Protein backbone atom coordinates (compact mmCIF):
# COMPACT_ATOMS: atom_id res chain seq x y z
CA UNK A 1 0.00 0.00 0.00
CA UNK A 2 1.24 3.46 -0.75
CA UNK A 3 2.04 5.91 1.95
CA UNK A 4 0.34 9.30 1.90
CA UNK A 5 1.46 11.61 -0.86
CA UNK A 6 3.74 14.52 -0.17
CA UNK A 7 2.23 17.68 -1.48
CA UNK A 8 4.30 20.64 -2.43
CA UNK A 9 2.54 23.55 -0.82
CA UNK A 10 1.88 27.00 -2.17
CA UNK A 11 1.80 25.86 -5.76
CA UNK A 12 -1.39 26.21 -7.77
CA UNK A 13 -3.36 22.97 -7.82
CA UNK A 14 -2.22 21.40 -11.01
CA UNK A 15 -1.74 17.76 -11.64
CA UNK A 16 1.94 18.50 -12.14
CA UNK A 17 2.25 19.22 -8.42
CA UNK A 18 0.53 16.04 -7.35
CA UNK A 19 3.33 14.08 -5.72
CA UNK A 20 2.91 10.35 -5.58
CA UNK A 21 4.64 7.75 -3.49
CA UNK A 22 3.57 4.40 -4.82
CA UNK A 23 5.02 0.93 -4.81
CA UNK A 24 6.39 1.12 -8.31
CA UNK A 25 6.89 4.84 -8.61
CA UNK A 26 7.50 7.92 -6.60
CA UNK A 27 7.45 11.41 -8.06
CA UNK A 28 5.01 13.85 -9.64
CA UNK A 29 1.94 12.66 -11.53
CA UNK A 30 3.14 14.26 -14.74
CA UNK A 31 6.31 12.28 -14.64
CA UNK A 32 4.41 9.09 -13.98
CA UNK A 33 2.28 9.79 -17.02
CA UNK A 34 5.35 10.35 -19.12
CA UNK A 35 7.01 7.19 -17.91
CA UNK A 36 3.86 5.18 -18.55
CA UNK A 37 3.59 6.59 -22.04
CA UNK A 38 7.24 5.82 -22.64
CA UNK A 39 6.59 2.36 -21.25
CA UNK A 40 9.29 2.86 -18.66
CA UNK A 41 6.77 2.12 -15.94
CA UNK A 42 4.64 -0.93 -16.58
CA UNK A 43 1.03 0.13 -16.51
CA UNK A 44 0.13 -3.40 -15.49
CA UNK A 45 2.14 -3.09 -12.32
CA UNK A 46 0.82 0.33 -11.47
CA UNK A 47 -2.06 0.43 -9.05
CA UNK A 48 -4.32 3.10 -10.47
CA UNK A 49 -6.48 2.85 -7.38
CA UNK A 50 -3.49 4.06 -5.34
CA UNK A 51 -3.07 7.00 -7.71
CA UNK A 52 -6.73 7.88 -7.20
CA UNK A 53 -6.38 7.53 -3.42
CA UNK A 54 -3.33 9.78 -3.48
CA UNK A 55 -5.27 12.35 -5.45
CA UNK A 56 -8.17 12.19 -3.00
CA UNK A 57 -5.73 12.65 -0.10
CA UNK A 58 -4.28 15.57 -1.95
CA UNK A 59 -7.72 17.12 -2.40
CA UNK A 60 -8.60 16.55 1.23
CA UNK A 61 -5.42 18.20 2.37
CA UNK A 62 -5.97 21.25 0.21
CA UNK A 63 -9.57 21.44 1.34
CA UNK A 64 -10.71 22.76 -2.02
CA UNK A 65 -11.78 21.20 -5.26
CA UNK A 66 -10.46 22.69 -8.46
CA UNK A 67 -12.96 21.44 -11.01
CA UNK A 68 -10.67 22.07 -13.93
CA UNK A 69 -7.94 19.86 -12.50
CA UNK A 70 -10.37 17.30 -11.19
CA UNK A 71 -11.93 16.82 -14.60
CA UNK A 72 -8.54 16.53 -16.22
CA UNK A 73 -7.56 13.98 -13.64
CA UNK A 74 -10.71 11.93 -14.19
CA UNK A 75 -10.26 11.91 -17.95
CA UNK A 76 -6.61 10.89 -17.65
CA UNK A 77 -7.27 8.17 -15.09
CA UNK A 78 -10.17 6.85 -17.14
CA UNK A 79 -7.97 6.74 -20.23
CA UNK A 80 -5.20 5.00 -18.27
CA UNK A 81 -7.73 2.50 -16.95
CA UNK A 82 -8.94 1.77 -20.43
CA UNK A 83 -5.38 1.45 -21.66
CA UNK A 84 -4.59 -0.86 -18.79
CA UNK A 85 -7.63 -3.04 -19.30
CA UNK A 86 -6.79 -3.25 -22.98
CA UNK A 87 -3.32 -4.42 -22.04
CA UNK A 88 -4.75 -7.00 -19.66
CA UNK A 89 -7.25 -8.31 -22.15
CA UNK A 90 -5.09 -8.67 -25.23
CA UNK A 91 -4.96 -12.24 -26.40
CA UNK A 92 -1.54 -12.07 -27.92
CA UNK A 93 1.44 -10.64 -26.15
CA UNK A 94 2.66 -8.97 -29.36
CA UNK A 95 -0.37 -6.73 -29.37
CA UNK A 96 0.87 -5.24 -26.15
CA UNK A 97 3.68 -3.60 -28.02
CA UNK A 98 1.43 -2.30 -30.74
CA UNK A 99 0.55 0.87 -28.85
CA UNK A 100 3.40 3.22 -29.51
CA UNK A 101 4.14 5.77 -26.81
CA UNK A 102 3.36 8.58 -29.27
CA UNK A 103 0.10 6.93 -30.20
CA UNK A 104 -0.89 6.55 -26.58
CA UNK A 105 0.02 10.18 -25.91
CA UNK A 106 -2.03 11.33 -28.90
CA UNK A 107 -4.95 9.31 -27.65
CA UNK A 108 -4.73 10.84 -24.19
CA UNK A 109 -4.43 14.28 -25.73
CA UNK A 110 -7.48 13.69 -27.91
CA UNK A 111 -9.42 12.65 -24.81
CA UNK A 112 -8.37 15.71 -22.89
CA UNK A 113 -9.25 18.01 -25.78
CA UNK A 114 -12.66 16.40 -26.21
CA UNK A 115 -13.37 16.68 -22.52
CA UNK A 116 -12.33 20.34 -22.60
CA UNK A 117 -14.48 21.15 -25.61
CA UNK A 118 -17.59 19.72 -24.06
CA UNK A 119 -16.85 21.23 -20.69
CA UNK A 120 -16.66 24.64 -22.36
CA UNK A 121 -19.79 23.88 -24.36
CA UNK A 122 -21.57 22.93 -21.15
CA UNK A 123 -20.54 26.26 -19.61
CA UNK A 124 -22.03 27.96 -22.65
CA UNK A 125 -25.26 26.01 -22.25
CA UNK A 126 -25.47 27.01 -18.63
CA UNK A 127 -25.07 30.63 -19.66
CA UNK A 128 -27.84 30.26 -22.22
CA UNK A 129 -30.08 28.72 -19.58
CA UNK A 130 -29.31 31.54 -17.17
CA UNK A 131 -30.03 34.11 -19.90
CA UNK A 132 -33.45 32.51 -20.35
CA UNK A 133 -34.11 32.88 -16.66
CA UNK A 134 -37.72 33.84 -16.13
CA UNK A 135 -38.97 32.81 -19.55
CA UNK A 136 -41.87 30.51 -18.90
CA UNK A 137 -44.24 28.69 -21.19
CA UNK A 138 -47.95 28.28 -20.80
CA UNK A 139 -48.73 24.69 -19.92
CA UNK A 140 -52.50 24.90 -19.64
CA UNK A 141 -54.26 22.37 -21.86
CA UNK A 142 -56.56 23.66 -24.57
CA UNK A 143 -60.18 24.00 -23.41
CA UNK A 144 -62.20 20.79 -23.36
CA UNK A 145 -64.61 22.09 -25.97
CA UNK A 146 -61.79 22.29 -28.48
CA UNK A 147 -60.09 19.13 -27.33
CA UNK A 148 -63.20 17.03 -27.80
CA UNK A 149 -62.94 17.48 -31.51
CA UNK A 150 -59.60 15.72 -31.75
CA UNK A 151 -60.17 13.10 -34.40
CA UNK A 152 -58.70 9.65 -34.15
CA UNK A 153 -56.16 8.87 -36.85
CA UNK A 154 -57.78 7.08 -39.77
CA UNK A 155 -58.06 3.28 -39.57
CA UNK A 156 -55.27 1.40 -41.27
CA UNK A 157 -53.01 4.45 -41.22
CA UNK A 158 -50.24 2.54 -39.44
CA UNK A 159 -48.15 -0.08 -41.17
CA UNK A 160 -47.97 -3.40 -39.27
CA UNK A 161 -44.55 -3.98 -40.83
CA UNK A 162 -43.09 -1.39 -38.46
CA UNK A 163 -44.02 -3.68 -35.56
CA UNK A 164 -42.24 -6.61 -37.18
CA UNK A 165 -39.23 -4.40 -37.84
CA UNK A 166 -39.20 -3.29 -34.19
CA UNK A 167 -39.36 -6.93 -33.16
CA UNK A 168 -36.47 -7.78 -35.45
CA UNK A 169 -34.47 -4.96 -33.90
CA UNK A 170 -35.15 -6.30 -30.43
CA UNK A 171 -34.24 -9.84 -31.41
CA UNK A 172 -30.89 -8.70 -32.69
CA UNK A 173 -28.09 -9.85 -30.45
CA UNK A 174 -25.46 -7.16 -30.03
CA UNK A 175 -22.21 -8.12 -31.71
CA UNK A 176 -20.31 -10.45 -29.45
CA UNK A 177 -17.84 -8.77 -27.21
CA UNK A 178 -14.38 -10.17 -27.78
CA UNK A 179 -14.10 -12.80 -25.10
CA UNK A 180 -10.98 -14.50 -26.38
CA UNK A 181 -9.27 -13.73 -23.11
CA UNK A 182 -11.80 -15.75 -21.18
CA UNK A 183 -12.00 -18.33 -23.93
CA UNK A 184 -12.66 -22.01 -23.59
CA UNK A 185 -11.16 -23.34 -20.39
CA UNK A 186 -8.71 -25.76 -21.93
CA UNK A 187 -7.54 -26.52 -18.48
CA UNK A 188 -9.89 -27.87 -15.81
CA UNK A 189 -9.94 -27.38 -12.07
CA UNK A 190 -9.76 -31.16 -11.73
CA UNK A 191 -6.49 -31.32 -13.63
CA UNK A 192 -4.99 -28.55 -11.56
CA UNK A 193 -6.20 -30.18 -8.34
CA UNK A 194 -4.40 -33.36 -9.28
CA UNK A 195 -1.29 -31.34 -10.17
CA UNK A 196 -1.32 -29.46 -6.85
CA UNK A 197 -1.95 -32.60 -4.83
CA UNK A 198 1.03 -34.19 -6.56
CA UNK A 199 3.22 -31.26 -5.51
CA UNK A 200 1.78 -31.25 -1.98
CA UNK A 201 2.77 -34.86 -1.47
CA UNK A 202 6.40 -33.74 -1.87
CA UNK A 203 6.03 -30.91 0.67
CA UNK A 204 5.92 -27.14 0.29
CA UNK A 205 6.22 -25.30 -2.98
CA UNK A 206 5.55 -21.85 -4.38
CA UNK A 207 2.77 -20.74 -6.69
CA UNK A 208 5.39 -19.76 -9.25
CA UNK A 209 6.69 -23.32 -9.22
CA UNK A 210 3.19 -24.66 -9.52
CA UNK A 211 2.33 -22.63 -12.59
CA UNK A 212 5.72 -22.25 -14.23
CA UNK A 213 5.38 -20.36 -17.49
CA UNK A 214 1.75 -21.29 -17.90
CA UNK A 215 -0.70 -18.86 -19.47
CA UNK A 216 -2.97 -16.64 -17.40
CA UNK A 217 -5.93 -18.96 -17.69
CA UNK A 218 -3.90 -21.79 -16.17
CA UNK A 219 -2.74 -19.48 -13.40
CA UNK A 220 -6.32 -18.53 -12.65
CA UNK A 221 -7.57 -22.12 -12.70
CA UNK A 222 -4.68 -23.17 -10.50
CA UNK A 223 -5.70 -20.51 -8.07
CA UNK A 224 -9.24 -21.84 -8.00
CA UNK A 225 -7.88 -25.31 -7.39
CA UNK A 226 -5.78 -23.92 -4.56
CA UNK A 227 -8.83 -22.28 -2.99
CA UNK A 228 -10.60 -25.59 -3.26
CA UNK A 229 -7.72 -27.36 -1.49
CA UNK A 230 -7.82 -24.75 1.22
CA UNK A 231 -11.53 -25.23 1.63
CA UNK A 232 -11.03 -29.00 1.88
CA UNK A 233 -8.34 -28.42 4.48
CA UNK A 234 -5.59 -29.96 2.38
CA UNK A 235 -3.36 -26.96 1.85
CA UNK A 236 -2.50 -23.60 3.35
CA UNK A 237 -0.57 -20.69 1.94
CA UNK A 238 1.41 -17.63 2.90
CA UNK A 239 2.38 -14.51 1.10
CA UNK A 240 4.94 -12.26 2.74
CA UNK A 241 4.18 -9.13 0.69
CA UNK A 242 1.61 -8.19 -1.88
CA UNK A 243 2.61 -9.24 -5.37
CA UNK A 244 5.23 -11.46 -3.75
CA UNK A 245 5.36 -15.16 -4.38
CA UNK A 246 2.85 -17.39 -2.59
CA UNK A 247 4.25 -20.34 -0.70
CA UNK A 248 1.96 -23.31 -0.39
CA UNK A 249 2.31 -26.14 2.08
CA UNK A 250 0.33 -29.17 3.17
CA UNK A 251 -2.07 -28.35 5.93
CA UNK A 252 -0.58 -29.76 9.17
CA UNK A 253 -3.58 -31.74 10.31
CA UNK A 254 -4.98 -32.21 6.85
CA UNK A 255 -8.38 -33.88 6.62
CA UNK A 256 -8.49 -34.15 10.41
CA UNK A 257 -9.54 -30.66 11.42
CA UNK A 258 -10.94 -27.72 9.51
CA UNK A 259 -8.62 -24.71 9.32
CA UNK A 260 -8.67 -22.59 12.43
CA UNK A 261 -9.89 -19.11 11.68
CA UNK A 262 -7.53 -17.37 14.14
CA UNK A 263 -4.27 -18.38 12.58
CA UNK A 264 -1.73 -15.71 11.85
CA UNK A 265 -1.18 -16.12 8.16
CA UNK A 266 -2.99 -16.82 5.00
CA UNK A 267 -6.53 -17.40 6.12
CA UNK A 268 -9.97 -16.64 4.92
CA UNK A 269 -10.67 -13.52 2.96
CA UNK A 270 -7.36 -11.82 3.55
CA UNK A 271 -5.44 -14.89 2.48
CA UNK A 272 -7.55 -15.23 -0.62
CA UNK A 273 -7.05 -11.62 -1.49
CA UNK A 274 -3.34 -11.96 -1.06
CA UNK A 275 -3.31 -15.06 -3.19
CA UNK A 276 -5.30 -13.25 -5.84
CA UNK A 277 -2.90 -10.33 -5.77
CA UNK A 278 -0.08 -12.78 -6.23
CA UNK A 279 -1.81 -14.43 -9.13
CA UNK A 280 -2.40 -11.05 -10.71
CA UNK A 281 1.25 -10.25 -10.39
CA UNK A 282 2.03 -13.62 -11.88
CA UNK A 283 -0.34 -13.00 -14.74
CA UNK A 284 1.21 -9.61 -15.42
CA UNK A 285 4.64 -11.07 -15.86
Amino acid sequence: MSSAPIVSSGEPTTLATLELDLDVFSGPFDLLLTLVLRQEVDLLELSLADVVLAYLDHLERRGELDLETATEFIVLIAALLELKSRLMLTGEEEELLDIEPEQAAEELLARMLDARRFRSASAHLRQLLAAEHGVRFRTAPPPASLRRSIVAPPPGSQDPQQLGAAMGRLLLMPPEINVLHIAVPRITVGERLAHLRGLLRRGSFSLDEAVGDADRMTVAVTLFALLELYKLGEADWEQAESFGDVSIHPFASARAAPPRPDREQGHGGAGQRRALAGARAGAAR
Partner: protein
Amino acid sequence: MSAVPAAVDAAPLARTVEALLFLSADPLSAGELADATEAGEAAVLAALAVLAEQYAPGRRGIRLRELGGGWTLTSDPDAEDAARRLLSRPRLATLTPAQAETLAIVAYLQPISRPEITRIRGVSADSATATLLERGLIEEAGHSQFGAILYRTGIQFLKLFGLRTLDELPDIARWDPSPEEQAQLRERLLRAGEARAGAER
Protein backbone atom coordinates in the same frame (compact mmCIF):
# COMPACT_ATOMS: atom_id res chain seq x y z
CA MET B 1 -55.74 54.85 -23.76
CA SER B 2 -57.59 57.97 -22.79
CA ALA B 3 -56.64 57.64 -19.12
CA VAL B 4 -53.01 58.42 -19.69
CA PRO B 5 -51.95 58.85 -16.06
CA ALA B 6 -53.50 55.52 -15.08
CA ALA B 7 -51.74 53.76 -17.93
CA VAL B 8 -48.40 55.22 -16.90
CA ASP B 9 -48.88 54.11 -13.28
CA ALA B 10 -50.41 50.74 -14.00
CA ALA B 11 -48.29 49.72 -16.93
CA PRO B 12 -45.55 47.69 -15.17
CA LEU B 13 -48.06 46.03 -12.87
CA ALA B 14 -50.44 45.38 -15.76
CA ARG B 15 -47.62 43.64 -17.61
CA THR B 16 -46.89 41.42 -14.61
CA VAL B 17 -50.57 40.62 -14.11
CA GLU B 18 -50.85 39.81 -17.79
CA ALA B 19 -47.90 37.40 -17.52
CA LEU B 20 -49.47 35.67 -14.51
CA LEU B 21 -52.83 35.30 -16.24
CA PHE B 22 -50.99 33.90 -19.27
CA LEU B 23 -49.16 31.28 -17.20
CA SER B 24 -52.03 30.19 -15.02
CA ALA B 25 -54.37 27.48 -16.20
CA ASP B 26 -57.06 28.55 -13.73
CA PRO B 27 -58.73 31.91 -13.08
CA LEU B 28 -56.83 34.09 -10.60
CA SER B 29 -58.58 36.24 -8.01
CA ALA B 30 -57.56 39.82 -7.31
CA GLY B 31 -56.26 38.59 -3.96
CA GLU B 32 -54.04 35.94 -5.52
CA LEU B 33 -52.74 38.46 -8.02
CA ALA B 34 -52.08 40.98 -5.23
CA ASP B 35 -50.13 38.38 -3.22
CA ALA B 36 -48.02 37.32 -6.19
CA THR B 37 -47.26 40.84 -7.37
CA GLU B 38 -46.87 42.20 -3.83
CA ALA B 39 -49.15 45.09 -4.83
CA GLY B 40 -52.40 46.19 -3.24
CA GLU B 41 -55.70 44.83 -4.46
CA ALA B 42 -56.75 48.28 -5.63
CA ALA B 43 -53.65 48.54 -7.79
CA VAL B 44 -54.31 45.06 -9.17
CA LEU B 45 -57.88 46.00 -10.01
CA ALA B 46 -56.63 49.12 -11.79
CA ALA B 47 -54.13 46.96 -13.72
CA LEU B 48 -56.94 44.55 -14.64
CA ALA B 49 -58.95 47.52 -15.93
CA VAL B 50 -56.04 48.54 -18.14
CA LEU B 51 -55.81 44.96 -19.45
CA ALA B 52 -59.56 44.74 -19.98
CA GLU B 53 -59.24 47.79 -22.20
CA GLN B 54 -56.33 46.29 -24.14
CA TYR B 55 -58.15 42.96 -24.48
CA ALA B 56 -61.47 44.50 -25.42
CA PRO B 57 -63.43 42.17 -27.73
CA GLY B 58 -62.32 42.43 -31.35
CA ARG B 59 -58.91 43.85 -30.53
CA ARG B 60 -56.86 40.71 -29.98
CA GLY B 61 -56.92 36.95 -30.45
CA ILE B 62 -57.02 36.52 -26.69
CA ARG B 63 -59.80 37.63 -24.35
CA LEU B 64 -59.72 38.61 -20.70
CA ARG B 65 -62.64 37.03 -18.89
CA GLU B 66 -63.99 37.34 -15.38
CA LEU B 67 -64.87 33.82 -14.37
CA GLY B 68 -65.63 32.10 -11.07
CA GLY B 69 -64.50 35.00 -8.94
CA GLY B 70 -61.28 35.48 -10.85
CA TRP B 71 -59.77 36.52 -14.14
CA THR B 72 -58.46 34.34 -16.90
CA LEU B 73 -57.25 34.60 -20.46
CA THR B 74 -59.02 32.57 -23.13
CA SER B 75 -58.73 32.34 -26.89
CA ASP B 76 -61.08 34.52 -28.91
CA PRO B 77 -64.19 32.61 -30.10
CA ASP B 78 -63.58 34.04 -33.58
CA ALA B 79 -60.54 31.79 -33.82
CA GLU B 80 -62.45 28.67 -32.94
CA ASP B 81 -62.57 27.15 -36.43
CA ALA B 82 -58.86 27.59 -36.91
CA ALA B 83 -58.22 26.22 -33.42
CA ARG B 84 -60.29 23.16 -34.20
CA ARG B 85 -58.33 22.56 -37.37
CA LEU B 86 -55.06 22.99 -35.48
CA LEU B 87 -55.95 20.73 -32.59
CA SER B 88 -57.77 18.11 -34.60
CA ARG B 89 -54.78 17.22 -36.71
CA PRO B 90 -54.15 13.55 -36.01
CA ARG B 91 -51.86 13.71 -33.02
CA LEU B 92 -48.49 12.06 -33.36
CA ALA B 93 -49.24 10.25 -36.58
CA THR B 94 -45.98 8.35 -36.33
CA LEU B 95 -44.84 6.24 -33.44
CA THR B 96 -41.50 7.03 -31.84
CA PRO B 97 -39.00 4.15 -31.86
CA ALA B 98 -39.66 3.60 -28.15
CA GLN B 99 -43.43 3.47 -28.74
CA ALA B 100 -43.11 1.14 -31.74
CA GLU B 101 -40.90 -1.23 -29.76
CA THR B 102 -43.17 -1.24 -26.74
CA LEU B 103 -46.24 -1.77 -28.90
CA ALA B 104 -44.55 -4.60 -30.83
CA ILE B 105 -43.58 -6.34 -27.59
CA VAL B 106 -47.14 -6.11 -26.28
CA ALA B 107 -48.64 -7.16 -29.62
CA TYR B 108 -46.51 -10.29 -29.99
CA LEU B 109 -46.19 -11.37 -26.36
CA GLN B 110 -49.48 -10.28 -24.79
CA PRO B 111 -50.37 -10.30 -22.04
CA ILE B 112 -47.11 -8.93 -20.74
CA SER B 113 -46.07 -6.84 -17.73
CA ARG B 114 -44.14 -3.60 -17.79
CA PRO B 115 -41.10 -5.01 -15.95
CA GLU B 116 -40.79 -7.62 -18.65
CA ILE B 117 -41.08 -5.00 -21.39
CA THR B 118 -38.34 -3.06 -19.64
CA ARG B 119 -36.14 -6.16 -19.51
CA ILE B 120 -36.55 -6.76 -23.20
CA ARG B 121 -35.92 -3.15 -24.17
CA GLY B 122 -33.06 -2.74 -21.73
CA VAL B 123 -34.52 0.62 -20.65
CA SER B 124 -37.66 1.84 -19.02
CA ALA B 125 -40.80 1.78 -21.14
CA ASP B 126 -42.87 3.85 -18.71
CA SER B 127 -43.47 6.90 -20.84
CA ALA B 128 -44.10 4.88 -24.01
CA THR B 129 -46.54 2.62 -22.14
CA ALA B 130 -48.38 5.65 -20.76
CA THR B 131 -48.73 7.19 -24.23
CA LEU B 132 -49.93 3.93 -25.78
CA LEU B 133 -52.46 3.50 -22.96
CA GLU B 134 -53.68 7.06 -23.35
CA ARG B 135 -54.17 6.56 -27.06
CA GLY B 136 -56.06 3.34 -26.49
CA LEU B 137 -53.57 1.21 -28.40
CA ILE B 138 -52.94 -0.99 -25.40
CA GLU B 139 -55.06 -1.71 -22.35
CA GLU B 140 -54.75 -3.39 -19.00
CA ALA B 141 -55.37 -7.14 -18.84
CA GLY B 142 -55.32 -8.17 -15.20
CA HIS B 143 -52.35 -8.91 -13.03
CA SER B 144 -49.44 -11.28 -13.28
CA GLN B 145 -48.86 -13.82 -10.51
CA PHE B 146 -46.39 -11.31 -9.05
CA GLY B 147 -48.98 -8.55 -8.99
CA ALA B 148 -47.65 -6.53 -11.94
CA ILE B 149 -50.24 -5.09 -14.31
CA LEU B 150 -50.44 -6.96 -17.60
CA TYR B 151 -51.04 -5.26 -20.94
CA ARG B 152 -52.58 -6.37 -24.20
CA THR B 153 -53.49 -4.62 -27.41
CA GLY B 154 -57.04 -3.35 -27.84
CA ILE B 155 -59.56 -2.82 -30.61
CA GLN B 156 -58.09 0.57 -31.45
CA PHE B 157 -54.79 -1.15 -32.19
CA LEU B 158 -56.33 -3.52 -34.75
CA LYS B 159 -58.20 -0.63 -36.37
CA LEU B 160 -55.20 1.66 -36.58
CA PHE B 161 -53.00 -1.03 -38.08
CA GLY B 162 -55.72 -2.33 -40.38
CA LEU B 163 -55.64 -5.85 -38.91
CA ARG B 164 -58.62 -8.14 -38.65
CA THR B 165 -57.04 -10.33 -36.00
CA LEU B 166 -53.71 -10.58 -34.23
CA ASP B 167 -52.86 -13.52 -36.50
CA GLU B 168 -52.31 -10.98 -39.23
CA LEU B 169 -49.27 -9.53 -37.46
CA PRO B 170 -46.21 -9.80 -39.69
CA ASP B 171 -44.37 -13.09 -39.51
CA ILE B 172 -41.33 -12.73 -37.29
CA ALA B 173 -39.47 -15.22 -39.48
CA ARG B 174 -38.73 -12.42 -41.92
CA TRP B 175 -36.63 -10.61 -39.34
CA ASP B 176 -35.36 -13.68 -37.59
CA PRO B 177 -33.22 -16.17 -39.47
CA SER B 178 -34.10 -19.00 -37.08
CA PRO B 179 -37.84 -18.95 -36.47
CA GLU B 180 -38.88 -20.58 -33.22
CA GLU B 181 -41.96 -21.11 -31.17
CA GLN B 182 -43.69 -18.13 -29.59
CA ALA B 183 -42.64 -19.32 -26.14
CA GLN B 184 -39.07 -19.23 -27.32
CA LEU B 185 -39.55 -15.81 -28.87
CA ARG B 186 -39.99 -14.41 -25.38
CA GLU B 187 -36.83 -16.18 -24.21
CA ARG B 188 -34.83 -14.90 -27.13
CA LEU B 189 -36.06 -11.34 -26.65
CA LEU B 190 -35.12 -11.43 -22.99
CA ARG B 191 -31.69 -12.82 -23.79
CA ALA B 192 -31.06 -10.14 -26.40
CA GLY B 193 -32.36 -7.47 -24.02
CA GLU B 194 -30.01 -8.59 -21.30
CA ALA B 195 -27.09 -8.72 -23.71
CA ARG B 196 -27.89 -5.14 -24.73
CA ALA B 197 -28.17 -4.01 -21.13
CA GLY B 198 -24.81 -5.66 -20.49
CA ALA B 199 -23.25 -3.96 -23.50
CA GLU B 200 -24.44 -0.60 -22.20
CA ARG B 201 -22.35 -0.87 -19.12
